[in-house]
Every structure is written in C-alpha cells, then in structure tokens.
C-alpha cells in the first residue's frame, strides 16, 4: 500500500512542472501578451488584434510571447489585451484592435517607455504608477469564485490550470472518498445554478443511494436564454474547472460515465472542452485509473441542437437518448431513473465549476460567502442599457441596485432606469421600486422574477413593457415543445392578446384574460418552461399596468416603441431650409419638400423606421416622435409646387 503513490503525490509531480512554467511567465524575460480570445473576444476582432501584434513584432524584429486566454467578462472593453513587460506590472488594455496593437508595439514594447495610457484599463497588480483594476467599482464589488481564473489562464493549456491548483480538489476527493464529498457539498448548501436552486448535495446523495448501476453524470451546458452566456464563458475560458467538477460529481455518486451536453451553437466551447478532455486523459486526470486509483470515468461531449426546452433535465435526457426533446413527468427524478433508465445526476456548468473550490477549500469557506439560504456567488450576464455590460460575479445577497448601478456603472447615456428582466425569457420584469431586492433564489422568486440561469436585461425609459412581455412570450411559445395543453396553446393565446395590445387593440376583458390565463398556465403546465413562461406578463401587468391601459384605452405607447401607435413628424421651426439629410435616408421616400423649402413626412408612406431621427443633424434636431399618431401637430404644410415656383420666377 505504502509503495503506491497517493493521488496527491501523483498530481504533485505534474503541478510542480506546471508551476515552474507559470512562474516563468510571471517573471518574464521577454514581454508576454495575453489576448482575450473566447467567442466574445473573437466577435470583437481579437484575431485581427493577434495578427496586428504578430506583424508589428516581426517588422520591428522584436520578441514577445503571445498567449490566448479566455474571457474576463468585460464585454464592453473587448478585445482585451494584457501586456506583461519586464519591469512593469501586468497592464490591461481595452478595445485593442490591430491599429492599437501596432501602437502598443511601437511605443511600449519597442522602447519600453510609453505604456500608452490612452488604451490602459488598469494594472493587475498594486503599484505606484498605474491605477489598478481593483480601484474600479466593477472589480472592487465583484467576488470572483467561479470565474476566478477566467481570462487569466490559457484554456488550451492544462498546465495553466494545474499551476493555479487545478485538479487538487479531485485528488483530495479521491483520497477522502465519495461519501465525504457528498457530505461536504451538502454542508456547503450548494444550490443548483441552473435556475431551480435545488441543493446539489441532496441530488448527489439520492443518486449515490440508487441501486441501479452504472450511473451517469451530465453537465448541462445547454444555455438557451437570449442574451445569456455564462456557461459558454466557463466552458471556453476554464474548461478544466468544469471537467474537474464533473469528475468529482461522478466520484461522489459512483458514476462511470460523464456527458457534457453542449449546444452546437457553441462551437468554440465544444472544441475547447473536447481538447481539454483529451489533455486530461493524457495526464490520467480523466479516463481510466484516474490518478492511479480504481476510479474510471468515460467522458464525452453531446452536442444539443439548440432547442431551448432541452435545458430542462428530462428533455435533455430524451435528447441524448435520440428522442424528441420533450420534458417528462417527474417523479421519477433523473437521479433515480434517468438516462437509459440509469440513475443520472444533471448539474449546470456553473454548479460544477463551483465544486472544485468547495472541495479544495472546504464547505466553511463557501458558506461564509453569500447568504445563509444561498451561499456562494451568482454569475449574471448583464446586458441591455447599462454602461458596462458583461459577465459579473457577485456574492449572493447583494441588491439589484448595487449590481446595476455600482458594479455595472448604471444606465447608459444618463437615461432613467425603467426595468430589469431577470432570469431570461421566463423571468420577471422588475421596476425601480423592487431594486432593493437581494439577489438570491428565494427573494427573486418572491418578487415575481427568478434567478434562472443568470440572464439579466436592463432597460431604460425607451422600452415599452407591453412589447417586452410580447417579445419574451413570443420566444417561449416558439420554444414550447408542444407537449402539454397549457404551454402549447395557452402561451399562444397570451401572444395573441399581447400582439393586439401593441397595436392598440384590446379591452379590459383581455387584460383580465391575460391575468387568469397566465395563472392557469403556471399551475397547469408540465415542466418549468410552461410554469415560468407567463412571468414576464404577470410582472409587467403588476408593475406597469398603466402602460397596458394606455395602449388600448388611449392607443398610446408611453415609451414610444410600438410602431402602430407612434408617428414621426418634422418640426418646421427647427427644420433647416435646404437641408436634405433626412430625404436621402428614408427607405420609402415618405419625406417631401414643403412650400417654404423645408421637409415634412407623408404619414401614409411612412413605415416608422426612425432613420430620419438619426439622419437629422444634431444642430437642428427637428424630427420628433409622438404617440398616439394623432398627436402630429397641424403645421399647415403644403408641398412645394415646383411648376408654380418656376412660373413666378
């Protein structure tokens, strides 16, 4: 027994090599350039940035190491580049395109003199010269637990993960055993981050106690909420953390098979994870005889075809089995009877990513973060009208106000805040009065929203709440699997009523029907898709009823958003004689010249695209939007009669 090295000892050899390499990167002899190269970075042009650096370095004959890293979550600043120049602290630059890359090489890397303050976001370490990132509210208020290494390590290099204590938790779990892991996760009160908040430890215990074998663990990476990309980022930026969590889960429940269900729309996540599985297998961290023990785990990736409902665990199982992704009645719960009838644990990618640090640092460390009922952190993808959109990780229990206004910099362009949609299309729309709601599963549910998987859309005063409800119901009714009556037909009726309202049609009866039908759908639907689909309707009805009333009683859209209820006109006083800016941009040629050589809009031809508002030079600012359309003032407009003019001359 004593002859065989323990998992920790076996891992220590690998870790030692990894740490040496890591140290070399941190005391660099040549400059090291880290480029954020996950999907979001690539969309912002990080490939051009890398090419720009390469070309400029070659031209100048300079040597530097370029390392691609994952995503830090600062979408507003992409492409993000960190340069570690010998003698300087690591400096992070924002919005670095190919041109900026060239400038950085010429001014900073070549001479080492000008660190280009104009592109600088901040330094990663405390120093005397540069502001550090910790000085920004975004960094100060964030608590990075799951995303700790995202954007700092190379997801394609397993040694980077090993250098930051990766797979230590797996080694510890292998030594302490599955029973211990389950009790540790239970005492950490880790709740599933997929939306429902079910305690992961209890799920694992049920599957562990199930008699049937073999058992299966599944990582749910079927993230389908519009505007949400937390799981994608975790899988792209720190794939080994997900895999380590999955392996620990498998050990805890006694599973020999693990599947990562990732949607096919995430090609980079799929390839990154597949690459990571291969690398981990090579190091005996997955596969057979993991770290010298008897524990075997066969890991594979299953690509989902993009149905939103397949994020629901029973539908996900159907999908892997090759059936139509339709949720099944529970019980039996998958932990008892899941994939192919075997006990199956399904955890979200975020939940699994949390597991390694709990196992490594202990449940006490974890329960000290967040609230009593929901310890730990929450990751939100905050999008919409905020100053700094992106991925944010905060401790559970902070208020929505804090998250939106302090961490994410408040509303863009100084406009007033109107509402925040939390929990994706099946979450709720909360107004300003609810901003003090703390972020945790139970408080959000009480407020009528839900944690969901962590999508958050912030809206300013330009958003019409009826249209917002219509938009989300349109999404859920389209994504309904069609199995149960309430969801299949009920959501369609909600959509009909809401669509009519956005056109100014409706009655008090329709509003009553919206309310009662929504409540019935919640009570009567089979799965959580249906049970939560009416949330946007109910919350907007509750908090923004005036807007609903304005639509059908006054045919007015207070936010000036619903096309059928608005009109554009040009104020003749403000309009400049001879200016043609708006005429050229109008797609339907609805703008004509008036008798005094100014411009006016032919309401019959106008399609209300709003292009003329943007085309009108700011010094005139003559195009106005009104609702209802009858509000267009009578300015006594007469079209210019060219013939008459000519005759007069």
């Amino acid at each position: 027994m004593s002859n065989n090295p323990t998992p920790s000892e076996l891992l220590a050899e690998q870790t030692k090599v990894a740490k040496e390499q890591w140290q070399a990167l941190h005391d660099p002899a040549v400059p090291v350039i880290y480029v954020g190269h996950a999907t979001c970075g690539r969309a912002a042009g990080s490939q051009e940035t890398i090419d720009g650096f390469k070309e400029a370095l070659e031209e100048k004959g300079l040597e530097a190491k370029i390392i691609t890293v994952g995503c830090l979550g600062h979408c507003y600043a992409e492409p993000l580049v960190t340069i570690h120049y010998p003698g300087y602290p690591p400096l992070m630059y924002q919005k670095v395109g190919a041109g900026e890359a060239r400038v950085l090489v010429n001014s900073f890397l070549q001479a080492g003199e000008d660190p280009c303050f104009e592109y600088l976001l901040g330094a990663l370490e405390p120093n005397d010269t540069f502001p550090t990132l910790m000085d920004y509210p975004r960094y100060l208020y964030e608590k990075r637990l799951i995303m700790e290494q995202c954007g700092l390590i190379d997801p394609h290099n397993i040694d980077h993960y090993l250098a930051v204590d990766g797979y230590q938790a797996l080694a510890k779990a292998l030594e302490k055993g599955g029973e211990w892991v389950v009790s540790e996760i239970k005492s950490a009160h880790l709740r599933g981050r997929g939306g429902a908040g079910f305690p992961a430890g209890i799920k694992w215990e049920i599957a562990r106690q199930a008699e049937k074998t073999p058992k299966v663990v599944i990582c749910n990476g079927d993230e389908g909420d519009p505007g949400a990309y937390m799981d994608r980022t975790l899988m792209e930026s720190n794939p080994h953390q997900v895999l380590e969590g999955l392996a620990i889960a498998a050990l805890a429940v006694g599973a020999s098979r693990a599947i990562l269900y990732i949607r096919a729309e995430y090609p980079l996540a799929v390839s990154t994870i597949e690459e990571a599985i291969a690398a981990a297998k090579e190091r005996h961290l997955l596969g057979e005889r993991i770290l010298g023990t008897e524990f075997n785990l066969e890991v594979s990736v299953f690509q989902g075809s993009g149905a939103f409902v397949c994020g629901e665990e029973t539908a996900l199982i159907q999908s892997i089995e090759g059936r139509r992704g339709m949720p099944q009645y529970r019980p039996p719960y998958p932990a008892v009877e899941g994939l192919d009838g075997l006990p199956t644990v399904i955890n979200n990618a975020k939940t699994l990513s949390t597991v390694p640090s709990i196992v490594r640092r202990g449940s006490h460390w974890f329960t000290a973060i967040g609230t009593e009922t929901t310890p730990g952190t929450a990751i939100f993808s905050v999008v919409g009208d905020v100053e700094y959109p992106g991925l944010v990780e905060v401790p559970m229990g902070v208020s929505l106000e804090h998250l939106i206004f302090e961490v994410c910099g408040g509303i863009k362009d100084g406009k007033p805040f109107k509402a925040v949609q939390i929990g994706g299309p099946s979450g709720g729309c909360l107004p300003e009065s609810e901003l003090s709601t703390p972020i945790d599963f139970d408080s959000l549910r009480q407020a009528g929203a839900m944690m969901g998987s962590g999508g958050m859309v912030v809206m300013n005063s330009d958003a019409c709440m009826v249209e917002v409800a219509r938009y989300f119901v349109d999404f859920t009714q389209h994504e309904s699997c069609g199995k149960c009556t309430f969801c299949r037909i009920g959501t369609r009726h909600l959509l009909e009523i809401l669509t009519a309202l956005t056109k100014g049609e409706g009655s008090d009866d329709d509003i009553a029907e919206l309310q009662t039908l929504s409540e019935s759908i919640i009570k009567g639907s089979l799965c959580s898709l249906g049970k939560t689909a009416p949330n946007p309707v109910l919350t907007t009805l509750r908090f923004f009823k005036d807007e609903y009333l304005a639509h059908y009683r006054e045919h007015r859209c207070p936010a000036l958003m619903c096309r059928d209820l608005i009109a554009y006109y040009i104020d003749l006083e403000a309009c400049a004689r001879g200016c043609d800016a708006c005429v050229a941009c109008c797609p339907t040629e609805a703008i004509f010249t008036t008798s005094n050589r100014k411009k006016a809009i032919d309401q019959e031809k106008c399609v209300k695209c709003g292009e003329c508002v943007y085309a009108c030079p700011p010094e005139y600012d003559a195009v106005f939007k009104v609702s209802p359309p009858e509000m267009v003032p009578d300015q006594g407009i007469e079209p210019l009669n060219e013939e008459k003019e000519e005759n007069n001359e």
Partner: protein
Amino acid sequence: MSKADEMVTLTVDGLKITVPRGTKVLKACLDNGIYIPNLCYIDGMEHPPASCRLCLVEIEGRPGPLPSCSQEVEPGMVVHTNTDEVQALQKTAFRLLVSTNNGKCRFCMANKRCAMQRIAKFLHMPLRTKKLRYIPKDMPEVIEDHPCIVYEPNKCVLCGRCVYVCSRQNNTFALDFANRGFNSVISFFGSREEGVGDYCRDCRACVDACPVGALNFKDERDAFLLTLQEKAGG
C-alpha cells in the same frame, strides 16, 4: 403475497375505494365509476405522458392540483376530484383545446363517440370557443402524407396516444410528433414508401387510439363525407 396482490384503500370524494397497489389514481377512479376527464392516458402505461392536463386532482398533503394519471395510490390517500381549483384548471385546459378546433362535430367521424364531447358534457362547457379567440394551426385542414391515413391537425389534441400505441405497443415507428410549440402535429414524415400503407391498413392501432377522430383511414373518411353530402342533398 406479491406486491401486485396487495390491496390499497383510499378515499376519493368521500368514497372509500380499494384497488391493487401500484394502480394510478386515475385508473383507480375510472375503475370505480368516478369519472375524471382525461385524454392522453392509456391503461398500462409505465410513465404516462401527463400532457393533456385534464385529469387533475387534489391530494391532501400534496401541493397543488396534480395529474392523477401519474400518481400511484397510497394507503389512506385522500383525493378530491372536483375542487374549485381543479375544475377551473380543467375548464381552462378544455377551453384552450377547443380554441384550435371550434367544434365542427357534425362533420367529424368521431361525432358522438369523441372524448372531447364527453368532457364537454362533464364540465358543462361548450365545444365552441367563446372567451378565447379561435386560432387554427397555420397549416392545411387535412394532411395527406400517408398512403391510407389522413390527419386533421386542428382536431388533434396532441395526446400522443397514437404515438404510444404505434411505437411502444407495436414497436412500429410510422408516426411521431413533429414541429414545435403551437404548431406541433403528428406526422408520418411523408412515409409513402411501398409496404407502409399495407402495414398500416391492417394495423388500425393509431386510428382506433385517437380519442377525437383526428386520424382516419382515407377511404372511410371519404365514404363518411359522401354520406353527409347525400344526406344534405337529399
């Protein structure tokens, strides 16, 4: 004594009934003359789909109305089949189902034996949509993509009984669900191949399983429509 021989006594609407252990509440009630509206349940299903959402009951000590097809009887269980909440939900589900079809019973082969007619009578509900708008599915009234079976999507209540009998009972896979959301249908996926028609003609399982007459043999339906025409003409 084996498990199946063991009997369980439960109370339904104040009435004590005794059924074998393992029986679903819905079956227990139906077998004892207590009607609960239902569409998608077939006796013997291991995991009923629980999709029609009509067989709801309230069970004391459990939250909210639950589909009785998916609840196993337990000794001492107290079941209520006609509470206000149950009835309200059943009526809403029924109204929703009716809103895509809007009762043209006279022209339907299932007239007088249709499960929807029975439920309408039970719930005292009309077979024409009143409060809700009439929204037919965005597709033809009749789909003829099978050599001998025709499908009427707006009559279909998507109970899935046909899919169950074809795949689970007969191990044939001639039809399945297609599309999604509101436009979900049953489809033969254009299986016009030789042989399929002969096989299906002899089988009849899906046509017989349909509770609402949405699946019919083409020749039978043609003959039925002809009789209707003749009646109207004569």
